[in-house]
C-alpha cells in the first residue's frame, strides 16, 4: 500500500486513526504495530515474515549485546542483520555476473528497515541508547508504516523517548502533520507523477533537447517523489506523536556535490557517515586513506540504491566528484557565486543519467550530439511541458518557503492556509484519479 492511494487515505488511515483514538495509553503502540504489519502484508503478502524476523532478531539481539558488549558479537549481529538484505537484494546481481539468471522478489523497504535494525543494534552496543524492553514499543519504531517502505531511515534514539511513553493528542501538531502530509501528497500526486508521465511520453524520442528535458524531469521527479514520501512520513509521524528528522533540504540549491548529498536523503547520508565513514577514520586520516574511505562509502551508497552496475558507477561517480572537489582545483569552482549552482546542477543531472538509464554512455552521447539536438517534436514538447518543468523546478527551491515566512504574519493568512490545505488535497485527488499514473519508485530499495 502506498500513501498516495485511495485505500490508504480513505480507509487504512481512517481506521488506524479511529482505533488509535479509541484505545488508551500503552495500547496505542499496539495499534500502530499491528496496523504497520497489516500495511506491509497488504502490499507484500507473506514476505511480512522477513519484517517480523528482522524485528524479533534485532529486538532480542540488542538486549543480548547490551549485556555482552564484545566486537565479535557486534560483527555476528551485523552479519545476521544484513543477511536477508544481501540475499534478497544482491544474490541475483552477483549471480548475473556469472551468467546465472536467478530471480528473487525483493521485499519492499528491506533496505530501510534493515538499516534501521542494524543502527539500533550498533547504537545499543555503543551505549548511545538503551535497549528497549518492550517488543511492542520497539516494533512500533521499526515497522511504523509512515516510514517503512520509503524512509526516512529513523534512528531509534530520535524517537526513543516518544515511542516509550504515552503520547497525548496535540491539536497543533496534528494540524501541522496534516499540512505536511498534504504538501507531500501534492508533491507526489501532482508534481512527481506528472513529471513521470512527461518523461514517459517523451521517451519515444531521442533528440538532444528532449533527452535533456527527460534528464532534468527525472531528477525533479525523483526529488519530488522521494521528498514527498518523507513529507508524508513526517506528517504521519506528527499525527501519532513522533518527530522524525528532515530528510531533504532543497538539494537542488546545493553549491557542490558534497553539499548536495548533505541535503538529499539526509538520513541515508547520516547512516553511512556514522556507521561506515567515521569508523573507517573519516577525513582525519592521510589523503589516500581519506580517498579510500570516501570511495567505500560511495560504492556502498550506489549499491544501496540498486543492485546493478549502473548504480555502482552512479555511486562512484559522486564519490569521485567529492574527492575532486576536495583535492583538486575543482574546489575553486564551488566557491564562485552562480557558477557553483550551475556546476552542481549540471553534474547532478548527468549523474542521475547513470541512475535512470542503464545505457548511460549511449544516452549521454545523444544528449551532447549537436547535430540532432533540436527538431519540431522537441520544440513542441518544450512549448507544451516547459512551463510545468519550470514550475516544478521553482517548487524545488526555497522560494515558496521564503514567501510563506513573509506572509505568515499577515492577519488573515491562517485562513488562506486552511483553504490551501484543502486545495492541495483535492488537487492531489484529482491528479491521483485523473492521471491514472502513480508509480512506486522504491521497489528496488
Amino acid at each position, binding site marked *: 500500500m502506498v500513501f498516495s492511494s485511495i485505500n490508504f487515505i480513505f480507509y487504512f488511515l481512517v481506521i488506524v486513526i479511529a482505533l488509535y483514538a479509541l484505545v488508551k495509553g500503552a495500547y496505542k503502540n499496539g495499534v500502530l504495530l499491528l496496523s504497520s504489519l497489516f500495511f506491509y502484508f*497488504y502490499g507484500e503478502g507473506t514476505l511480512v515474515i522477513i519484517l517480523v524476523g528482522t524485528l524479533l532478531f534485532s529486538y532480542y539481539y540488542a538486549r543480548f549485546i547490551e549485556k555482552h558488549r564484545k566486537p565479535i558479537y557486534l560483527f555476528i549481529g551485523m552479519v545476521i542483520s544484513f543477511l536477508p538484505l544481501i540475499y534478497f537484494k544482491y544474490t541475483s546481481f552477483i549471480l548475473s555476473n556469472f551468467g546465472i539468471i536467478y530471480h528473487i522478489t525483493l521485499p519492499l523497504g528491506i533496505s530501510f528497515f534493515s538499516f534501521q535494525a542494524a543502527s539500533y543494534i550498533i547504537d545499543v552496543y555503543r551505549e548511545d541508547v538503551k535497549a528497549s524492553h518492550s517488543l511492542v514499543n520497539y516494533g512500533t519504531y521499526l515497522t511504523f508504516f509512515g516510514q517503512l517502505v520509503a524512509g526516512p531511515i529513523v534512528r531509534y534514539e530520535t524517537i526513543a523517548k516518544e515511542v516509550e511513553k504515552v503520547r497525548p493528542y496535540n491539536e497543533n501538531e496534528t494540524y501541522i502533520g496534516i499540512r505536511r502530509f498534504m504538501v507531500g501528497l501534492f508533491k507526489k500526486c501532482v508534481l512527481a507523477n506528472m513529471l513521470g508521465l512527461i518523461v514517459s511520453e517523451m521517451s519515444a524520442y531521442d533528440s538532444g533537447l528532449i533527452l535533456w528535458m527527460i534528464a532534468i524531469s527525472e531528477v525533479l521527479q525523483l526529488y519530488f517523489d522521494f521528498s514527498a514520501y518523507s513529507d508524508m512520513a513526517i506528517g504521519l509521524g506528527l499525527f501519532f506523536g513522533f518527530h522524525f528528522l528532515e530528510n531533504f533540504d532543497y538539494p537542488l540549491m546545493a553549491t557542490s556535490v558534497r553539499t548536495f548529498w548533505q541535503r538529499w536523503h539526509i538520513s541515508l547520508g547520516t547512516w553511512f557517515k556514522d556507521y561506515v565513514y567515521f569508523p573507517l577514520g573519516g577525513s582525519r586520516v592521510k589523503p589516500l586513506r581519506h580517498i579510500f574511505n570516501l570511495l567505500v562509502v560511495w560504492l556502498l551508497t550506489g549499491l544501496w540504491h540498486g543492485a546493478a552496475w549502473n548504480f555502482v558507477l552512479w555511486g562512484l561517480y559522486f564519490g569521485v566528484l567529492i574527492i575532486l572537489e576536495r583535492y583538486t582545483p575543482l574546489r575553486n569552482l564551488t566557491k564562485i557565486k552562480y557558477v557553483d549552482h550551475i556546476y552542481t546542477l549540471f553534474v547532478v543531472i548527468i549523474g542521475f543519467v547513470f541512475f535512470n538509464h542503464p545505457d548511460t554512455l549511449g544516452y549521454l552521447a545523444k544528449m551532447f550530439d549537436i547535430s540532432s539536438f533540436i527538431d519540431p517534436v522537441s520544440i513542441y514538447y518544450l512549448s507544451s511541458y516547459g512551463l510545468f518543468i519550470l514550475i516544478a523546478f521553482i517548487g524545488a527551491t526555497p522560494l515558496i518557503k521564503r514567501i510563506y515566512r513573509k506572509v505568515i504574519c499577515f492577519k488573515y493568512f491562517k485562513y488562506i492556509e486552511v483553504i490551501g490545505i*484543502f486545495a492541495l488535497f483535492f488537487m492531489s485527488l484529482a491528479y491521483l484519479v485523473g492521471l491514472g499514473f502513480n508509480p512506486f519508485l522504491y521497489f528496488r530499495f
Partner: protein
Amino acid sequence: MYKKFTIIVLAVIVLFISITTILNKNTVSYLERRHLASFPKVDLLDPDFYSDLDTYMSDHLLWRDSFIKYSSLANRYLFGFKDNHGVYSSDGYLFETAIEDDDSINDLIAKTNGLKDTYFKDQEVYFIAIPRKNDYTERYFPLDLRYDDIKDSLKDNLDMDYIDISDLLSLDSYYHTDIHWRQDKIEAVADYIVRSLGDEYSEVEGTYKTINDFKGSLYASSFYDVAPDQIDYLTFDETDISVYDLEKDAYVGVYDEGAIGHPDMYDVFLDGPSAYIHIENKKAPSDQKLIIFRDSFASSLIPLMIDSYASIDVIDLRYFNSSLLDTLELDQDAKVLFMYSLEFINKSGALR
C-alpha cells in the same frame, strides 16, 4: 480555533468520501467509456485481492469524473499543456497524437499479402486505408501520422489494388470527439468504393435517426473544450436483410439500439465489435458478393453498402484467428476488400 476547524472538516470530508465510495454502485463510467472494476472476490491471503481492491476503490471514488476533468483543465490552463494524454483540440475537433510505427505497417502488409496468397489467390482483392481526421486540419502537429506518408508504402508493397478515398473526406466527415467517421457524411465514400470494386452501387433509402450526447473515445482525455457529438444513423426496412453474428450465434439487427446509453455508443453500428458477421440481402438488385476484412470504421460504412450486395462477409481479424478462415466457407466468387483505418494500420499488433 482554525486548526480544530481544519481537522474536523477534513475528517468529515474524508469520512463522507469513504462511505459514499463504498456505497457507490455505478458499474459504468460514461466519461471514460468503460466498465468500472467490480468488487474483487474476498481472499485476505491473496495479494491480488488487495491490488484489485485498490482498483475498485479508485474506480468508485466519489466525484471521480469531476476529478478527471479538473486534472485535465489544470493541465491546460494552469500548466499550459498543449495536449492531454496525447489528445489536443483544434477547429472544434479533438485529435490524437500518433507516432508512425514502421514495424506495425510492414507487419500488416506482410500479413495481408499472406492472406491473399493463402485464401484469395484467384479473387479480386482490394485495399483501402482510411485517413485520420488529422489529415484534414490545417494545424501542423509534429507528433502525427499522415495518410500521405504511408500511402505510397502501402500501394507499393501490397499485392492488390489500392483504392484511394482520401479526396472524398474532409474534417466534417468525422466526429468531433471520436476518431471515427460519421455515417451521414460518407455516403459518397460508399458509392465510390462500390464502383471502384467494379460493382453497381444501389443507394440505401431510409431515414436518419439521432443519438445525442455521444462522447467519443477522445472526449475523456480532452480539455473539455469540445462539445459532445450526435450520432446520425440511417435506418431502413430490414425485412429482407439478415445479419448473422457468429460470436453470438444469432441473428441481429443492422443497428444495435441497445448500445444507446452504453459507454461506447458507436457500437450501435453493426452490433459493435464482432469477429464475423454474415449479411444477406434478398432484395439486392444483383448477386454481387463481398468479403470485408475490417476494423470498427467499417461498421458505419457497411450499412450504406447493404443494398449493393447479395451478401457481405465481415471479418475482424482482431477477434477472428486468420488460420480458421477455412471454416467460414467464404464464397470463392466474392470480391475481397481489406479496409483499415490508419490508426489500426499503425497498431496492427492485434491482427491474428
